[in-house]
């Protein structure tokens, strides 16, 4: 599979060189109109039944022929499911009078029904996490809003201050995860409302054409690349589950701006630093590079555009060689332009790199990424799991940092489970037991779950129960929504 990518990248580069045709047809852009027909409910990543491979493209004088590289899909589109999920590359050769263009499609044929995956850890399905999420989200909706009904920064300032972009992006991704977990009309309406409210954050004063979001009605400077990358991930997830093109369009536009943060010597900037900043202030953080690599993989999955795969590999590799703590197997925080490494370790940084590595493994099947995931699973358990301070919950694991940081560690566990080894799910099972313990024992008078589910460990943020930060309330909610999806996934693979 690795070789296949390399071969196609090579082929593609040859084709790109010759893509200007002599009969005036730009076959490369025409190829974008070529779509494969899937059965209802199936996508390029979830094929179970036969697919339709068109022989022509409407409106153009071209012919299309197809070639598969694996028996699970024939050149005519007949699908035969195998024992495990299979990646198949279908090459469409588009011919005009004088020219030829080859466009590859990478398709996942799902494993045969009845193929059960062995899960070697004990688990107990809660089955009602959807209701818990709905309850926590309704608290956010009723208690963390300004008088005008917008998302507020926290309960203390609800009468004055609209959320900053960091907080709002956390709210947005939570609303998306809520819809992914439970795609009802009601949850779709919430997503649509959140998408509309996000418009207030759009930067309208920029001289360039980029789509950028920022606090203060879009005017905060320098704009944060990382606050925007969480939105990109939310947009792609929303697109994958609603199929509404505007989500993909926004994801692509914001991601394009994020790529402009790339430095000649490697790494994406944290913020859109102007030249006048000193080198020590110009930092390249794991919190932008990890999620940007991951978002690039998600965009590659959604569009099949190899540019994003290239970006993902480039960003991931730079981050690994500059910010990875080999000894402890977790990620450091940032490196400045003058090369000073800040060695703080937060859960979300390791988590986003785990998601990126898991997706890279899914699409390249390279052992390098598989090993990376294994190392990060080990390291995060060693460094972030608060082992000795809480012994009375034998199958529960409490992790450090605030709830929003933990979201991305939990998401990393979930991606590692789905794309690398289903038995990594044991971490999710234990996180689930920990958060259920919190819901049982540490709810404040409003009904919000505490930042610290164990009730014993002082968190980094203000743990004042009078003062709920929206960022942390939606963080807890998003974790629950991921865990609900984990349970659904577990049920599916073991049935």
């Amino acid at each position: 599979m690795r070789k296949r990518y390399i071969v196609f990248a090579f082929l593609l580069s040859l084709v790109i060189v010759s893509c200007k045709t002599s009969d005036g047809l730009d076959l490369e852009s025409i190829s974008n109109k070529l779509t494969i027909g899937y059965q209802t409910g199936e996508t390029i990543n979830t094929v179970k039944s036969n697919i339709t491979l068109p022989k022509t493209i409407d409106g153009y004088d071209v012919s299309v022929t197809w070639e598969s590289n694996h028996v699970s899909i024939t050149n005519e589109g007949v699908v035969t499911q195998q024992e495990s999920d299979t990646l198949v590359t279908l090459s469409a050769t588009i011919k005009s009078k004088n020219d030829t263009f080859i466009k590859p499609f990478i398709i996942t044929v799902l494993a045969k029904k009845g193929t059960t995956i062995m899960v070697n850890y004990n688990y107990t399905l809660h089955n009602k996490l959807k209701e818990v999420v709905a309850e926590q989200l309704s608290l956010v909706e009723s208690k963390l809003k300004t008088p005008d009904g917008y998302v507020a920064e926290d309960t203390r300032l609800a009468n004055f201050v609209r959320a900053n972009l960091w907080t709002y992006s956390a709210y947005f991704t939570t609303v998306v995860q809520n819809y992914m977990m439970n795609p009802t009309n009601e949850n779709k309406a919430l997503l649509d409302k959140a998408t509309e409210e996000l418009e207030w954050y759009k930067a309208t004063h920029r001289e360039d054409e980029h789509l950028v979001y920022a606090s203060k009605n879009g005017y905060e400077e320098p704009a944060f690349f990382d606050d925007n990358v969480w939105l990109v991930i939310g947009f792609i997830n929303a697109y994958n589950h609603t199929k509404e093109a505007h989500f993909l369009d926004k994801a692509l536009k914001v991601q394009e701006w994020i790529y402009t943060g790339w430095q000649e010597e490697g790494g994406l900037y944290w913020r859109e630093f102007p030249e006048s900043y000193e080198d020590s202030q110009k930092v390249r953080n794991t919190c932008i590079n990890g999620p940007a690599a991951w978002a690039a993989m998600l965009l590659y999955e959604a569009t099949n555009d190899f540019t994003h795969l290239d970006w993902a590999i480039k960003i991931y590799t730079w981050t690994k060689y500059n910010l990875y703590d080999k000894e402890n197997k977790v990620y450091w925080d940032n490196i400045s332009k003058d090369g000073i490494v800040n060695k703080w370790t937060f859960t979300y940084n390791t988590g986003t790199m785990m998601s990126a590595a898991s997706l890279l493994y899914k699409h390249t099947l390279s052992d390098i990424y598989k090993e990376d995931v294994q190392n990060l699973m080990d390291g995060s358990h060693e460094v972030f799991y608060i082992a000795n301070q809480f012994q009375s919950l034998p199958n529960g694991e409490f992790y450090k940092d605030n709830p929003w940081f933990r979201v991305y560690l939990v998401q990393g566990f979930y991606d590692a489970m789905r794309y690398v080894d289903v038995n990594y799910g044991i971490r999710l099972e234990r996180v689930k037991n920990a958060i259920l313990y919190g819901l049982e024992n540490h709810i404040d008078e409003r009904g919000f779950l505490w930042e610290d589910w164990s009730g014993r460990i002082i968190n980094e943020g203000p743990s004042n129960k009078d003062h709920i930060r929206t960022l942390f309330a939606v963080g807890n909610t998003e974790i629950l929504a991921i865990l609900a999806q984990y349970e659904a996934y577990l049920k599916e693979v073991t049935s």
Partner: protein
Amino acid sequence: MSKRLFSLIIITALAFILVSCKKTPNPDNGTNPDDPNVPLVINNAFYDAALLHTYLIQNDFYASPGRIKAYDPADPTPGSEFSGTSALWGYGAYLTMYAQAAKINPNLKHFKDNVYDAIDGLKVFRMPRQQLHYSAIVGAGGEPYYDDNAWVVLGLYDIAKVYDDQEALSHSRELLDYVLSGESEDGGIYWKETVSSRNTCSSGPAVVAAVLHYLENPAEETQLLEAAIRIYNWTKRVLKDPQDHVYWDNATYNPDTNTESIEKAKFTYNSGTMIWAGALLYEATKDESYLEDANSTALGSLGYFYTTGRDNKKFFPRSPWFNLYLLRGFISLAQTYEDRSRDYLVNSFRDNLKYALSKGVDNRGYLLPSWGSGVLSPTDKYVALLDTAASTEVLFLLADWEVNYLKEGK
């Protein structure tokens, strides 16, 4: 044209240029973004923290105009000093905080409304006497202090300059008459009407206020400059420590021995107002000796007050409201030097407050009075309006320095 007026014009012009090219009006108000009356969006960490503090203070301390709580939470123990309504001292700090807020973002409704609400609230402190002045506590039961009134004079003056408000200016000018009426036979201003001590804390701000009003109308107010110089000279002669040029607190004259008995405690604000006074007297008279005074006191103060603490960082003492006036002195002196050679004085505050914002915030979001030095006290749980308003004003002053004086907020 005096140099000070000239520089004011330059700064104002600069501010307008910045408005049009660097900072951006906030179109959230639904108005034309080119309209100069629209509030600005300011991208500055000190400003953001200060704005947050004003919201917290409104939320936690505000009762009604003139009725601002002194502590939050208030200590429920009967007779506790950590409870009750704010005295004029804390109320003045609240007023001057909004004056600085308005200076950096005049059209923000939140600031403008609270500025005028705070001026309106002064009426509950009004002493029922012909001469305008304010009592130390709410109602007529207290007694007036010259220094408490002097801070209000300065706050009203700043507000008048921001909004070009003649009413606030004459209010300030009228109240200044009361402060100057506390002048003793040979120059120093008494602390209040019923004591015989003459204090740096009443004399210093009296000089500053007198020179500021003199500069408003130099042709007709020469008596203000004369009074300022008399008070300045007395304070310098009696209350300046000749060793390090840092100011002592107060002096009480003993007529039997013909000597002054000096209280030698040193607080940041006493040196701060005298540095400020020196810088202003230099602008008014061009006499370089005032500048020399200001410089030696500034250097002495930095050595005396700005000391090394945790993380090998330097910190000002645990007294935000006192420190506020040292910063005002530093800013005034630094802005006298076009070659930027005294910017380092202000940078000491920028460093301390930057550290404070990362390490010295309590669980409610308030800056601790220790400003990150780690010198904590059990009373920190009672957030004091005086200190909190002062810390906030310091943040606004630093934001203004970075955004408007350094041009590029960086």
